[in-house]
């Protein structure tokens, strides 16, 4: 298999076109067709597709395996890698494996605490934190060395990503923390879901003040709301989520058969708002177990077709 030196996502962002990535949640089982079906829905409408790494600490098909399945379909996959379940030995081994399998993009995260998941009695790892994982990937790629200092024979080719949650506390260090990640080596950033546009705009001001947007591509996280119940659940039960009451009330104000349309309408307004913020290089759509809605959002937002690269 001959692999391109640069992945589609990196090319898209470098070319300056407003990028679209989407999230694909892997199944809680071994059926590869679940990934293929989601991949088919997302392929034409995205520059790259993220696969989550046991999100909310619930066991799912591995991100690595799912990324390979997407790669076989011609999709540029983004391997999400948390530091919750693997130490530096396993993480670096997976980076080599991912690169060998043609996975170009790796997104570094802490990972939700295992107490939220289906195995709350599990032991966690946290040998490295997310900033240190980014640093490790940069050292592996740029210095062709392991974290131990030993030489890598055949260095991995990686486009390094990170996440940041502008809605977590303390708010005033959130841009500074992103600056640390970019200094450690992150080249693109996918943010937590934006529901509170006002706060996100304020955060982006701080990002620009630190000139982070000139050193890394910032993609705003977008999640369509499916129902008022989902909005309330996101607000109350998902760590780090900021869903303003106004949005919940707006979802509640329409009859049940209109929930979907109202969720899409809010989503499109958010996309429009973040597109107008200086320094935003694209969007990352996290349609949780609702990947089928992504084509409609991308088309209605005027982001389809993706320019051919």
């Amino acid at each position, binding site marked *: 298999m001959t692999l391109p030196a640069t992945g589609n996502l990196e090319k898209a962002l470098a070319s300056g076109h407003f990028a679209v990535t989407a999230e694909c949640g892997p199944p809680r089982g071994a059926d590869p067709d679940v990934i293929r079906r989601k991949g088919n829905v997302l392929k034409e409408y995205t520059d790259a597709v993220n696969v989550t790494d046991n999100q909310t600490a619930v066991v799912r098909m591995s991100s690595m395996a799912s990324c390979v399945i997407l790669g076989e379909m011609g999709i540029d996959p983004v391997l999400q890698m948390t530091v919750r379940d693997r130490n530096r030995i396993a993480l670096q081994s997976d980076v080599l494996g991912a690169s060998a399998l043609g996975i170009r993009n790796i997104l570094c995260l802490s990972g939700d605490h295992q107490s939220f998941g289906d195995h709350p009695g599990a032991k966690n790892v946290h040998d490295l934190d997310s900033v240190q994982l980014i640093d490790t990937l940069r050292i592996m790629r740029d210095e062709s060395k392991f974290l131990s200092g030993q030489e890598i024979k055949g260095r991995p080719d990686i486009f390094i990503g990170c996440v940041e949650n502008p809605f977590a506390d303390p708010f005033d260090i959130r841009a500074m923390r992103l600056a640390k990640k970019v200094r450690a080596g992150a080249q693109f950033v996918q943010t937590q879901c934006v529901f509170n546009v006002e706060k996100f705009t304020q955060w982006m001001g701080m990002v620009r003040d630190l000139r982070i947007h000139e050193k890394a591509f910032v993609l705003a996280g977008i999640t369509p709301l499916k129902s008022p119940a989902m909005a309330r659940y996101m607000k109350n039960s998902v*760590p*780090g989520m900021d869903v303003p009451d106004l949005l919940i009330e707006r979802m509640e104000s329409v009859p049940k058969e209109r929930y979907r349309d109202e969720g899409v309408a809010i989503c499109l307004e958010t996309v429009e708002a973040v597109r107008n913020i200086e320094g935003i290089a694209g969007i990352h759509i996290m349609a949780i177990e609702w990947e089928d809605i992504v084509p409609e959002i991308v088309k209605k937002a005027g982001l389809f077709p993706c320019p051919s690269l």
Partner: protein
Amino acid sequence: MIVADRKPFDEIMKMIAPYERILLLGCNECVTVCAVGGTKETALLASQIRMKRQMEGRAADVGERTLERQCDPEYANTLAGALDDYDAVLSLACGCGVQFISESYPGVPVLPAVNTRFMGVTVEAGVWAERCQGCGNCVLDRTCGICPVARCAKSIMNGPCGGSHGGACEVNDDIPCAWQLIIDRLKAKGGLQAYSDIEKARDWSTSRDGGPRKRIREDMAL
């Protein structure tokens, strides 16, 4: 200090069921301060066991004793001979005490009456909280006296993670976010400049990850 919780009474009764003559052994150190295994608690548990045994129609041969420290040969050795009258020891000390009595008297079963929880402090009367994990490489000079290893649920060295909210940890609203505390201290000290420093990957070999630890001071050997 080392903080412990007493095991549920039913679990203790099940544990001591095979034995007739039992010595309840308290410890005058940490477990006394955290009110789980001192003289008072030893007497209370002994009474409970005697009553339960009498209700069961069994002999209630339950002795009581409290050592100054169960984790130290100076005091552990004082039990020599005294254990001949017992089938088992039920220790109310932490896991260190239980093991040290057990290795000092290998012929006698030494059973744990408490679950050892953490190294911590008395926050207020009746409240204890974890502060140290004994990682063997203290960073408190760089983190304003607040330990991210012990007090952040993910031991994040470049925190806080995206789950910090309103000063609380994502795991539980009752757990303060260690990084919120660190940042508050930094601000109070006059600036966030130090926050920009990236804390590099740690060497965990000084922690439990390097295997069970031992400290030797040759100059103190007798």
